[in-house]
């Protein structure tokens, strides 16, 4: 029953989107979102570094990803080497990113090239890839899948080195031991394999649900009394789907004890785990666990043997929006991933939506048991135009390179720190004159395209929303659609809506037409649109009159008062002009006899207007000059007579405008008025 069409078909699939920090320097953060895009973000300045859409991103979505270890970069395919000689300064840059997909293929993506490096398909998995691990030294890649097998890949040759059955059910997680000789795999049980012989060395049982994460927590055994054989005495940790416990296991020399030595409790299923390895005995292991509910739990513990009680976290980190005003309550922002920085004292937090995550470095303070960070991410929701959607890799430049920019020479001055003068001259010579730069043109095009796309999207979704709302009679959904003010949008929606919803929409509109004129005006817009667009359809309906009868009667009864109302409106206008007029006269009388002055200014303005008019007329009518002048005098006299009235009218008009403003919501004028009155 569960698979009715909900979000993720498999209820036991690990939560969260696959994401990872690049190893060592953590300069990049890769995130494979549910829409099939792989995005790589720069952690330092929170910018989109690269975006890549695999060709099969809809059929085979990315299920897991892993960065290649940095050391591997040195021995690469010859093509890669050539590039490296060109670009100086990228030696320790992490490059390869392995993506596992739901159909079983593994993609290797090169972040330096910004394109697909190679694809591992032949002889591999035929079902969803659950986990990928790179071997530290040998350049091999290990992957496990729902098809119960574990595959060892030769990355250089893109071929399968070895493939063996890992479990009786799907293998969900992998981890390679610190010395690189053992492999942990987790299906129904956790198994430790010897990589040389592919034999099972140890079994561990304890999780009820598929294990979603495995990780070695120590690289040396806690007591150095016995000789270290590379594996015995090491601790590792495992988290499982739907499980709120992280178990810690120890690899013992004798194969007796099989249960977990200790466990950590968290509030929800773990989504992302990061830890700092402890080098010596005294230093505790620090563990950061991101849960499905968006919280991060930090643990600090010295691993030494069995502990019966589950350990609770030392510190919990949450992020919430600021609650502005009374109405908006703070909402939690989910944390997507967290990674320890190299100094072990601060944490990189990735939060927000996977569409536009925010990456922030947070210093750790172990004394506080609970940290709640207040962040406003509302302004980062829109994709940044300047960084968005660049499939084109930004070229790597060194300092000696000359940059030739077409177009206006000063255009890039703001971005480039200080381009040498010669370059500018050269570029000026090359791109003669005031041509618009390519970038500007591209920018203009891009914006146009986006606008268009957005518009289309909205009108596509509006008819769907409307139909759904009408079918299920969902009040909120209908409100969302019907309360739009955009006439164009209304028209497009009405054009695109299916024909069988026309009558239900009219009935819904009938209900909504009865309300306050403020909202009902919008409904009339819809009604008009429906009537104009679907006129021919409506006229073919045999039972149109009974269908629309109530609507017609309703409207008719409402407009009956039109005449009286207009009459009343006239009265009100007169009244209000008088109000404002009386206010003005009061205001004018209080400072004394200065009113005359005001009038003179006005008249002078009028005069000047008249003069301009006269000048115009002088060209044509020279003879009438005297007459017009005398007329003007008369005008002035008249105005003097109607001193108060004329001014009143004018002021009244002003007031009218002001009143309109006030009605529109500008209530700034009110206190002013009152003070004037008093």
């Amino acid at each position, binding site marked *: *029953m*569960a698979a*009715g*069409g*909900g979000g993720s078909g498999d*209820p*036991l699939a690990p939560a969260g989107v696959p994401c990872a920090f690049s190893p060592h320097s953590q300069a990049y953060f890769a995130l494979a979102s549910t829409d099939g895009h792989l995005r790589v973000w720069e952690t330092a300045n929170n910018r989109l570094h690269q975006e890549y859409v695999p060709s099969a991103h809809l059929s085979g979505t990315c299920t897991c990803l892993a960065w290649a270890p940095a050391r591997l970069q040195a021995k690469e395919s010859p093509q890669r080497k050539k590039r490296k000689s060109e670009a100086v300064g990228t030696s320790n840059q992490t490059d390869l990113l392995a993506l596992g997909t739901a159909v079983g293929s593994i993609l290797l993506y090169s972040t330096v090239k910004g394109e697909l490096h190679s694809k591992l398909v032949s002889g591999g998995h035929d079902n969803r890839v659950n986990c990928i691990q790179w071997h530290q030294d040998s350049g091999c890649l290990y992957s496990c899948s729902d098809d119960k097998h574990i595959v060892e890949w030769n990355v250089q040759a893109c071929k399968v080195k070895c493939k063996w059955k890992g479990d009786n059910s799907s293998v969900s997680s992998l981890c390679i031991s610190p010395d690189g000789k053992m492999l942990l795999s987790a299906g*129904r049980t956790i198994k430790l394999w010897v990589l040389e012989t592919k034999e099972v060395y140890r079994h561990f049982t304890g999780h*009820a*649900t598929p294990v979603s994460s495995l990780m070695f927590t120590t690289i040396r055994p806690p007591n150095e009394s016995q000789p270290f054989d590379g594996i015995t005495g090491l601790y590792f940790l495992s988290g499982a789907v*739907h499980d709120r416990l992280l178990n810690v296991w120890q690899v013992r020399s004798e194969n007796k004890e099989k249960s977990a030595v200790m466990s950590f409790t968290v509030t929800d299923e773990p989504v992302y785990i990061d830890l700092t390895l402890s080098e010596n005995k005294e230093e505790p292991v620090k563990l950061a666990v991101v849960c499905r509910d968006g919280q991060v739990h930090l643990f600090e513990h010295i691993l030494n043997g069995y502990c019966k009680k589950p350990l609770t976290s030392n510190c919990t980190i949450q992020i919430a929006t600021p609650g502005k005003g009374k109405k908006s309550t703070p909402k939690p922002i989910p944390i997507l991933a967290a990674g320890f920085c190299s100094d072990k004292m601060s944490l990189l937090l990735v939060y927000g939506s996977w569409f536009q995550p925010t990456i922030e470095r947070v210093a750790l303070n172990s004394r506080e048991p609970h940290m709640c960070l207040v962040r406003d991410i509302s302004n980062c929701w829109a994709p940044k135009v300047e960084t968005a959607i660049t499939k084109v890799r930004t070229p790597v430049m060194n300092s000696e390179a000359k940059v030739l920019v077409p177009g206006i020479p000063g255009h890039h001055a703001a971005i480039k720190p200080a381009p040498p003068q010669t370059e500018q001259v050269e570029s000026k010579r090359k791109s003669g004159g005031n041509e618009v730069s390519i970038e500007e043109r591209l920018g203009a095009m891009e914006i146009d395209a986006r606008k268009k796309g957005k518009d289309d999207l909205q009108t596509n979704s509006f008819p769907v929303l409307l*139909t*759904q709302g009408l*079918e*299920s009679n969902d009040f909120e959904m209908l409100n969302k659609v019907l309360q739009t003010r955009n006439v164009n949008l209304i028209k497009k929606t009405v054009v695109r809506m299916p024909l069988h919803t026309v009558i239900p929409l009219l009935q819904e509109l009938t209900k909504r037409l*009865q309300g*306050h*004129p403020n909202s009902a*005006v919008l409904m*009339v817009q819809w*009604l*008009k649109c429906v*009537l*104009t667009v679907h006129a021919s359809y409506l*006229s073919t309906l045999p039972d*149109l*009159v*009974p269908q*629309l*009868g*109530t609507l*017609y009667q309703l*409207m*008719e*009864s*409402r*407009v*009956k*008062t*039109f005449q*009286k*109302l207009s*009459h*009343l*409106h006239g*009265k*009100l*206008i007169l*009244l*209000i002009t*008088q*109000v404002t007029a*009386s206010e003005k006269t009061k205001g004018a009388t209080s400072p004394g006899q200065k009113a005359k002055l005001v009038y003179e200014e006005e008249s002078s303005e009028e005069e000047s207007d008249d003069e301009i008019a006269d000048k115009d007329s002088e060209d044509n009518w020279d003879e009438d000059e005297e007459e017009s002048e005398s007329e003007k005098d008369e005008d002035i006299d008249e105005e003097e007579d109607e001193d108060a009235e004329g001014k009143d009218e004018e002021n009244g008009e002003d007031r009218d405008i002001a*009143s*309109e403003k006030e*009605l529109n919501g500008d209530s700034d004028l*009110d206190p002013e*008025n*009152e003070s004037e*009155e008093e």
Partner: protein
Amino acid sequence: MAGYKPVAIQTYPILGEKITQDTLYWNNYKTPVQIKEFGAVSKVDFSPQPPYNYAVTASSRIHIYGRYSQEPIKTFSRFKDTAYCATFRQDGRLLVAGSEDGGVQLFDISGRAPLRQFEGHTKAVHTVDFTADKYHVVSGADDYTVKLWDIPNSKEILTFKEHSDYVRCGCASKLNPDLFITGSYDHTVKMFDARTNTSVLSVEHGQPVESVLLFPSGGLLVSAGGRYVKVWDMLKGGQLLVSLKNHHKTVTCLCLSSSGQRLLSGSLDRKVKVYSTTSYKVVHSFDYAASILSLALAHEDETIVVGMTNGILSVKHRKSEAKKESIPRRRRPAYRTFIKGKNYMKQRDDILINRPAKKHLELYDRDLKHFRISKALDRVLDPTCTIKTPEITVSIIKELNRRGVLANALAGRDEKEISHVLNFLIRHLSQPRFAPVLINAAEIIIDIYLPVIGQSPVVDKKFLLLQGLVEKEIDYQRELLETLGMMDMLFATMRRKEGTSVLEHTSDGFPENKKIES
């Protein structure tokens, strides 16, 4: 001398959503208790016996909750994989559940380990149920088969291989121990009879069937799949009775109210709809926060439990009736006070003098009776009256106008009082049912207060507001007039068609149309 006749208060139909018995009944629940489960809640089932505990299947566990406990009183967690469809037996003692690995397990409510394990399905078992005789279990699985198991010797009795896709839902008849029904993703619902070892009836739903339900009488079958809920008449050999399309996403679960009068359906569009089983119209609808996967009603509809995809279980309890009783009521005179002397039979020489019954008058009527018109108006302009029953205020204004004293009643008010009147006008002027009376009143007010206008900023502001409102209303009506024009055109085309078909029709269209409308 004729007595005073109280003002007739005009009654208007109540606007907006109609309050029906159903809305009252279904709204009478407390705020939901939300319980977080480990995974999507795929099934909720109430025990048919008191104390009406319910079993909740989520992820690899089955929790049993008591009526008011928010902690599970019992947990069955011995599943290797996801558990499905934990269902109580009719006596509430046994519980059967399917599992992702193809096993069917039978539990005693008091025990922990399974009593019986039925092995035989090769894929996930999504539906299990007890037959009416309590000794058999029916199960349907993703391996396209439906199996009937015997509880006492835990043997498989029969296997039906008639479905051609996953079997995801089913239920056994409550009356006949041999009949049961399964719904499958091959779009069919089949009825099986254990005596014949083939299906006896098959109906085509049209979409993958997510849930089936048999009415207690066994005569009607309800199937849900896609966006449709369909009702079939079993006694007529599977005839489609009605097809309901009230959700905009897949319907996942069905449930009957305890009276059998209402059908509930939950859907991925986060709504639960309540249908009447007589008219098959939606009578109520609930909203939830996430897509709904499972739904159950307790005995006497005391509790609604809804399980959602995000693992949250929402439990709503009915508000207790006793609370209302406990409110102390003012003691009224006993009934016999009123009937005292009423049964006296008139005798031969008696002359009966009826004492005129004392008429009860409302306060405003009393004022009007004594011609205190201003006071009467004040009374009905009181906020308690204007908000709750504006029609009384309007009726009084109308009555004053009829008497020709509205101007007098409105005159002579100070700033505060006049602003009360204006407030009322602003609030109700745009309502078409009050408009004619109120427009008149507004004009009178303007006439009266024109000379003293501009003295009070408060009143001036009110006039400004009123003016804005009137302006908007006029704009709106202008738009309406335009629209009316359009509709006239449409109706006119209609008339022409009628004219061609009906020969004797000659009169011009408009009154004709109105006749049809009315």
